[in-house]
């Protein structure tokens, strides 16, 4: 096993891939509005349907259904833990920060203070073929928040 592979599949990622926090997808019955997005990676068939509920400018709930690789499923699970209860605007900057790390080809190391467990995905950016796997849930969240805005 190379260190590259262990950097990609950190234990926290393997654990989240199994735990799948936020799954399954649930109806949002809280205050405010909700939005939904389905994202597909046609290369490998990974898919996710994610629903975000927003009340008083806060992301109150994230739930999702998905099928895909360890990276895509763990990313959705970590994202759920990270963003629930945070102000919508802050969540949007987190998505931007995560995307910047993912597109950096290994040049930007994620700030754990900001991204929490999602910093474990820094290694993914060195594997360009896997960046889309890691981004799938984050793109779904971004689209869901737009949809929730009406």
């Amino acid at each position, binding site marked *: *096993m190379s260190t*590259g*592979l262990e950097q990609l*599949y950190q234990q926290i990622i393997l654990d989240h891939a199994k735990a799948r926090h936020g799954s399954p997808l649930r109806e949002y019955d809280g205050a405010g509005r909700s939005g939904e997005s389905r994202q597909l990676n046609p290369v490998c068939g990974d*898919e996710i349907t994610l629903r975000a509920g927003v009340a008083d400018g806060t992301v109150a709930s994230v739930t999702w259904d998905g099928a*895909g*690789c*360890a990276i895509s499923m763990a990313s959705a699970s970590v994202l759920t833990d990270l963003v629930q209860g945070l102000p919508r605007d802050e969540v949007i900057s987190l998505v931007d920060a995560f995307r910047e790390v993912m597109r950096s080809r290994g040049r930007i190391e994620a700030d754990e203070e900001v991204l929490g467990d999602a910093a474990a995905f820094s290694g993914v950016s060195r*594997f360009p073929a896997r960046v889309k796997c890691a981004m799938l849930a984050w793109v779904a969240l971004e689209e869901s928040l737009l949809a929730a805005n009406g």
Partner: protein
Amino acid sequence: MPVVETPVTLTPASAGLTDAEVHRIRNDFPILGTEVNGKPLIYLDSGATSQNPLSVMEAEQEFYEQRNAAVHRGAHTLAVDATEAYEDARTAVARFIGARTNELVWTSNATEGINLVAYAMSNAALGRGGAAARRFAVGPGDNIVVTEMEHHANLIPWQELAARTGAELRFLPVGDDGSLRLEDAAAIITPSTRLVAFSHASNVLGTINPVGELVQLARAVGALTLLDACQSVPHLPVDVKDLGVDFLVFSGHKMLGPTGIGALYGRAELLNAMPPFLTGGSMITTVTMERAEYLPSPNRFEAGTQRISQAIALGAAANYLSETGMHHIEAWESRLGARLVEGLGAIEGIRVLGPAAGLPRIGLAAFDVDGVHAHDVGQFLDDQGIAVRVGHHCAQPLHRRFGLTATTRASTYLYNTTDEVDAFLDAVAQVRPFFGAQR
């Protein structure tokens, strides 16, 4: 130009290549000596694209260094040389599959060959090609039959043809064992069937389909047949006259040739009656401002400047395969395929699609790893220098039929060794422990 119509002499059937011969063959493929992620490359993705021997790369380079010119036009020496090399390549590739030279149309790839036939058929449905082309016309009340195991390339062009013409698209289902359910065929292939399009060997299951039986069923109702031979022409001896199909397509880059070149075989009588698909320069006899008359096959289907160097390189690839002997290659790969299936079957949590161990299959195996997504399996193997394909392999309906979205596929060729297959099996055995997927 010299056109020699002698049949190619194949080496008689045997137990196949030996380990020593395979090691000698490997020396012809520079890329097989490279490293990936610090490990010697083990290339098990020839079902997607094969590697090129030096003779193929040299043929392309030699053309550009010494003969580069447009073909079938111009009277200068280079143009004559280029045309001769280009047409010699056509003869070599036609002979490789037992066809006559005028029955082999160059295409960009197999996908374009299938689309050529599909669009020729809808052109015929619009009345193009006159009475002679009426046999290609499809419309409401007619049907086109494919199978559930087709690559998207042999499915979507027929979906589109059906949508354009009002014909119905039907399919022959696949059984749990990965074979076509021929017992259902009589209800599906009917007198209103105009074309039966199917693969010779499945790119996912490895199944070798009973071409003769399907041709008989199609002929009995007056339907045409089209065979997708992408996974057979590179790996098995193929003779179009023995198979009896009307059309056959294959790709160059899966048979040691370059990308950008493939071929469509059609019986001469059919090709000369079929309206063209792409039109323009080089495919005509007389042109007025109102209309044009077309050359016979193959030129009527080769509009515009052609893929000259690629065709010549594909000719060199066909010669390389003939000299090695397709019977030897078939026997060697059948050994590798059996070793793959038996080895994978012995690993806990692995489910191999397609024919059971001991039954005929080409040298590939697609499999599901319980608890680990195919993309992760591929990443783990890549870390060990092993190149495989992951995903749906352009066969989503087939994966859905087996309740899967993605599988991992190892596919062999004449240059793979039994040691490589064993190293692959060892690596696959480590996948579930690494991802903590064992119960």
